[in-house]
């Protein structure tokens, strides 16, 4: 009872160290996210452009000494992982500066460190029982299921937004073309009539 109380007292961290964000990147702008990391920590991040223009964005990662770790231009989605060489602030930047009028919606998932245990007492180095190790492997499998669901959700959002844009464009173009047809049809006749009305006098004169 007391042990449980003490273990509760010791525990105060979140289960997983990672941040998932979906943000809008306006045109001609750059957005940077910073994370303070220790040495020899493995971090991985992946990003996807969900909507906007040609669905691409520039991305670069800079370490505390201003070295460029990753630099890609106009990518639709990518993932990158790295083990830190030094302690400091790592910067992940997305740039939409090449675009003149389209905003982009970018999804970013930045994970670092190892998953924290549920309870402090679970970090004991003694071997896990069969039940416990089954639970651990189930948990890892479910994590990958959730990750794959996120992937599909983003792809679906991307495709749905494209389909909605297509619908909009088809509607506007159809209406526009119909109006154009009428205008050109009637315009041609009027122009032709105007040619003959003016030249009627000269035609009579020449024949």
């Amino acid at each position, binding site marked *: 009872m007391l042990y449980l109380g003490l273990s509760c*007292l010791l525990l105060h961290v979140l*289960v997983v160290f990672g941040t998932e964000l979906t943000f809008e990147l306006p045109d001609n702008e750059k957005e940077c996210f910073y994370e303070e990391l220790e040495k020899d920590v493995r971090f991985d991040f992946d990003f996807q452009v969900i909507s906007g223009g040609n669905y691409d964005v520039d991305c670069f990662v800079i370490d505390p000494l201003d070295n460029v770790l990753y630099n890609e231009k106009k990518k639709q989605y990518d993932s990158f992982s790295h083990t830190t060489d030094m302690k400091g602030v790592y910067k992940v930047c997305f740039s939409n500066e090449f675009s003149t009028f389209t905003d982009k919606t970018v999804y970013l998932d930045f994970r670092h460190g190892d998953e924290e245990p549920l309870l402090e007492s679970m970090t004991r180095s003694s071997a896990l029982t069969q039940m416990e190790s089954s639970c651990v492997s189930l948990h890892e499998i*479910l994590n990958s299921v959730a990750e794959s669901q996120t992937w599909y959700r983003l792809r679906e959002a991307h495709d749905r937004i494209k389909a909605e844009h297509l619908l909009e464009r088809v509607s506007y173009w159809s209406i526009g073309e119909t109006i154009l047809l*009428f205008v050109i*049809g009637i315009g041609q*006749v009027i122009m032709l*009539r105007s040619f003959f009305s003016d030249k009627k006098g000269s035609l009579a004169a020449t024949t």
Partner: protein
Amino acid sequence: MMLSLSAALTLALAWMFPAHGLYFHIGETEKKCFIEEIPDETMVIGKYRTQLWDKQSGSFLPATPGLGMHVEIKDPDTKIILSRQYGSDGRFTFTSHTPGEHQICLHSNSTKMALFAGGKLRVHLDIQVGEHTNNYPEIAAKDKLTELQLRVRQLLDQVEQIQKEQNYQRYREERFRMTSESTNQRVLWWSIAQTLILIVTGIWQMKHLKSFFEAKKLV
């Protein structure tokens, strides 16, 4: 008594312990928005911590009290479900009632322009969704679960969230299918309509010009 006290202390620590989230810089009148696409009945907890650039010490210091952030959350129908002012460190939570894209917007409420002094505000943000919002030590203490029971509880929560996401996926696919079918219909009908208009206009032009030229005695 001892257990509830330690649980309360744990909760207090969990809340005050700064979240090691990603951070970004925000300008004085800038509004930063984040989108969370979530199924219904999903809880979202967001924690933020702000720091202000201090010219004298040349570093970021914990923000002065009085400098807060205004948090606005909109649901998929663009109806505001939360619009509140929080202090320099804050925690906001909401549960979605409709599935879809929720928008979480943050902007600082500073009225005194001098506070920023041309600098930027650093915001540490951490947003947790679904089963990640569960505080397992608290659950273990409240329901008196053993370690194994707690692990199984975590697995149950994960599976429940996966199921919600799958239901949401079904609803989204239906929307997508409706959009595609409407596009298909529109392309079909407009093509037929435009071809008819072309033919009718062509015939009308020929008839009109023929009668025009006959009237002008040129044909």
